[in-house]
């Protein structure tokens, strides 16, 4: 279990990782469609009222492209032997657990809640009263989101580390810069295309 959860990049072949990564991304995109989740940025997820079938898949493809591109450039700087397939697999696999955040919008609960709160906060800030159930839901969502985001970044870094044989501070710095650039570029592409 430890191998699957924390050391997948050390033990599984690139073909197996690629197959799982691609199938998982397609399944997660369908889940995103069913639960109205848009992944509009490498680090983002938002719940919407209406959604088209292709939108979550296109979001995810853009995110995977952005993260793979910038992490691959960072990887090539760290180690010229870095292979694109290893970075692509890291990008695909690392995102899989993160997609589970879609489950927070079962029955459209989180989309309704955020819409209610945004509406009240912008139109009638004085009437903004949140019931304890909603506060609990927001706290649980925030905690789960944070955990999944940390796990996503952990897996992405482990994949990058194995692909590049990264050691020392420079690869960590380049990784952070690559993630920030990927976030900015993915948001821009999704904003203009999707």
């Amino acid at each position, binding site marked *: 279990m430890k191998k699957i959860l924390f050391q997948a*990049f*050390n*033990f599984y*072949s*690139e073909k197996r990782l690629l197959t799982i990564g691609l199938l998982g991304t397609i399944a997660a995109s369908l889940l995103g469609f069913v639960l109205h989740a848009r992944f509009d940025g490498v680090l983002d997820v938002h719940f919407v009222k209406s959604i088209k079938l292709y939108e979550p898949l296109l979001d995810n493809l853009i995110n995977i492209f952005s993260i793979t591109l910038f992490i691959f450039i960072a990887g090539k700087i760290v180690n010229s*032997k870095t292979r694109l397939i290893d970075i692509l697999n890291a990008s695909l696999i690392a995102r899989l657990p993160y997609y589970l955040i879609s489950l927070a919008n079962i029955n459209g609960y989180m989309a309704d809640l955020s819409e209610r709160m945004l509406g009240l906060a912008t139109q009638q800030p004085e009437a903004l009263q949140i019931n304890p159930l909603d506060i609990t839901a927001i706290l649980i969502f925030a905690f789960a989101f944070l955990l999944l985001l940390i796990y996503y970044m952990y897996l992405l870094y482990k994949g990058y580390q*194995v692909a590049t*044989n990264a050691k020392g501070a420079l690869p960590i710095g380049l990784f952070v810069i690559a993630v920030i650039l990927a976030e900015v570029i993915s948001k821009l592409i999704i904003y203009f295309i999707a």
Partner: protein
Amino acid sequence: MAQLPVKCPSCQHTLEVSELSCGNCETKISGIYGLPALMQLSVEDQEFILAFVLSGGSLKKMATQLGKSYPTVRNMLDDIIEQLNAK
């Protein structure tokens, strides 16, 4: 069989060979001979190199044999190369 020590237990300096003997006629040769670079590696690294040579230098075969991913095996080899370059 006892493992060949390569580091001095007192000061951690690399050991040298000072005596060789023939198991057949008991002839002994004394002198100062440096240990070959490969012998200064850990037993695990020496076994890795042996397996690498026996697999015809194929990292893909090695990865399958060891049950590890290709980049992991390549990193192991790169780390050994780094150690050898430092000697």
